[in-house]
């Protein structure tokens, strides 16, 4: 069969190398691949302690075709602030600086530096690939771990009691120019938002729901499916917020039951019927609130 001219769906150049050390099916590795496709070569990446410190390869190798600065766990936003400042001083304002942190480095230990940078409206892109626990250290809970999830520090008979921290709401409250959520199951949306973020001056924050097969107790091949279910069940709405005020919902799913999402993951195995109902109610409530913000 001959074929029609192929129009690539997403930019073709690859700025991530094979041979990186992510687990099979890792959402975080795919996320980086998309992000760099969107941002291009004129990008610097700052990685605090997290799975990505490993994924990116041990000395003397790198998994990325852009510069990486590996830094301490809590410092991504501060390092990015300084790096951007220096680049501005050196006449290289066109370089995109991207801080790339896990949920631990974002919601928890790096939260102060992030909030500081957001308040100062530093001109860089902060990305949280959120796998909802400290995976690098062996699946401990973070403040991003959702209600009812198993981790090694919220064990089977005592799964997490508190809901996930609302990082998007918190960042919106900083009124930063651009804030978005993206999913690896929606590559076009993902890439468009990174490209948009690149074009905006000031602080940008992008939250990626990032499936982790060993941490979420899922089969390696389920990462995209689960990401999609998260969006379709409205657990993870795809949205953009400009200046903390202008909300845009990028996709309005019909709204399948949260059960489909939860049942696909071993970490939610112990949820009771009541728990599931509770989660559904919370998701519905938040969705309504979101819809109100939009209209």
């Amino acid at each position, binding site marked *: 069969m001959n074929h029609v001219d192929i129009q690539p769906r997403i930019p073709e150049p690859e700025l991530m190398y094979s041979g990186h050390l992510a687990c099979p099916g890792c959402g975080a590795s795919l996320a980086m691949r998309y992000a760099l496709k969107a941002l291009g*070569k*004129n*990008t*610097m990446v*700052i990685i605090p302690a997290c799975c990505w*410190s*490993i994924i*990116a*390869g*041990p*000395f*003397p*190798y*790198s*998994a*990325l*075709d*852009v*510069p*990486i*600065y*590996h*830094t*301490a766990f*809590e*410092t991504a*936003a*501060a*390092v*990015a*602030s*300084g*790096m*951007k*400042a*220096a*680049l*501005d*001083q*050196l006449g*290289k304002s066109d*370089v995109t600086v991207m801080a790339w942190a896990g949920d631990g480095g974002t919601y928890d230990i790096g939260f*102060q*530096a992030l*909030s*500081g940078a957001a*308040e*100062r409206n*530093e001109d860089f892109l902060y990305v949280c690939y959120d796998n909802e626990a400290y995976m690098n250290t062996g699946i401990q809970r973070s403040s991003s771990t959702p209600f009812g999830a198993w981790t090694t520090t919220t064990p089977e008979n005592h799964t997490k009691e508190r809901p996930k921290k609302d990082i998007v709401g918190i960042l919106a409250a900083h009124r930063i120019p651009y804030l978005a959520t993206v999913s690896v199951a929606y590559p076009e949306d993902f890439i468009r938002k990174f490209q948009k973020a690149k074009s905006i001056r000031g602080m940008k924050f992008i939250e990626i729901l990032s499936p982790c097969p060993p941490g979420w107790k899922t089969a390696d091949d389920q990462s995209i499916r689960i990401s999609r279910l998260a969006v379709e069940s409205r657990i993870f709405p795809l949205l953009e917020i400009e200046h903390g005020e202008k909300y845009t919902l990028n996709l309005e799913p019909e709204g399948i039951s949260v059960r489909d999402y939860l049942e696909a993951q071993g970490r939610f195995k112990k949820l009771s019927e009541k728990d599931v109902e509770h989660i559904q109610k919370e998701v519905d409530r938040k969705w309504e609130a979101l819809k109100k913000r939009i209209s």
Partner: protein
Amino acid sequence: MKKVMMGNHAVSYGARLSRVDVIAAYPITPQTQIVEELSELCADGKMDAKFIKVESEHSAMASCMGASAAGGRAFTATSSQGLALMHELLHFSSGGRLPIVMANVNRALGPGWNIWTEQTDSLAQRDTGWLQFYCENNQEVLDTVIMSYKIAEQLSLPVMLVLDAFILSHTYEIVDIPEQELIDSYLPPYKPEIKMDVDNPHAFGALVTPDHYFEIRYKLQETMDKAAEVARKAGEEYGELVGRPYDIVEPYMLDDADVVIVAAGTLVSNSRAVINEYREKGIKVGLLKLRMFRPFPTKRVRELLAGKKKIAVIDRNISFGATGIFYQELKAALYGHGNGAGSPNIFGFIIGLGGRDVTLEDIAEIVDYTLEKEKNEEDIIWMGLKR
């Protein structure tokens, strides 16, 4: 141009003359005027630098790391609690071979809250891979900021310069501000061989297995070994250009001295005054000023103190459960390399913790004690302790 200014402003002017690109700092007494002056200089356009008003010292150092990694000249200043908060990143910045310069105003650590001078904060960071310089007066402070960049950038290692809280930080002295062109000829723009560069991408600071970590640490130490000579030359060159030479250690009336005081920071000035008095009385007391603490100037110390009988080390600091830190370091430098027999007696004095005044009388007492005692009986000789 001469100007009367407090030590903190001398820091700021030193940074300005060094044409730093990025300043990231967080206020803490007694360092605040450094930050205030710099932010004013930046705001007024008198200084072409970005001032990042970070939300913590930890972030201050992190921002400096980011700036430096991208090839910018980065500066910060802190003190005490702030320095302690930075600790993790002191390792990170030296390991990352980033020539950041930081001024630390020596202040005691809490609790209870104490904002007055003490050396423990900076000395506690001795193992982090930073070079450390202790200053005696405001002029030295300004000059040392500039020299620090000269040294740091040659070695790819960060440098901390230290000044005493209030005694220097808030005390006005006449300071000569060198011409900018002069400093420009001394300190060329920072051009690192390797840095964050989109046209030549590298990953910095990745995971290193035991296979290589050891050797890379060795390399850092190797650089430290060269640092003393680099620092000496930098001070010499500065002297040739500006007319004020500096060395890493500075002897005063040392050659014929029977008792040698070893001190750093403003304690040196006090000691000098006391030595002058004793010399007038014909008593041979000398002084060794430690300007550089890291790397420890072991070789020079050994040379200069060879054959001395008695040495009095004045520590305004303490390593709990051990002794004064300069005392330890001096002993370590002088002993254990096969010359034990002819080595001097070393007396370790701890004095003025938490900013308690160190008077000329106190120093005289130290000298007298040392003269009087045949040999050292205690590891810590507490001076001025209200028993």
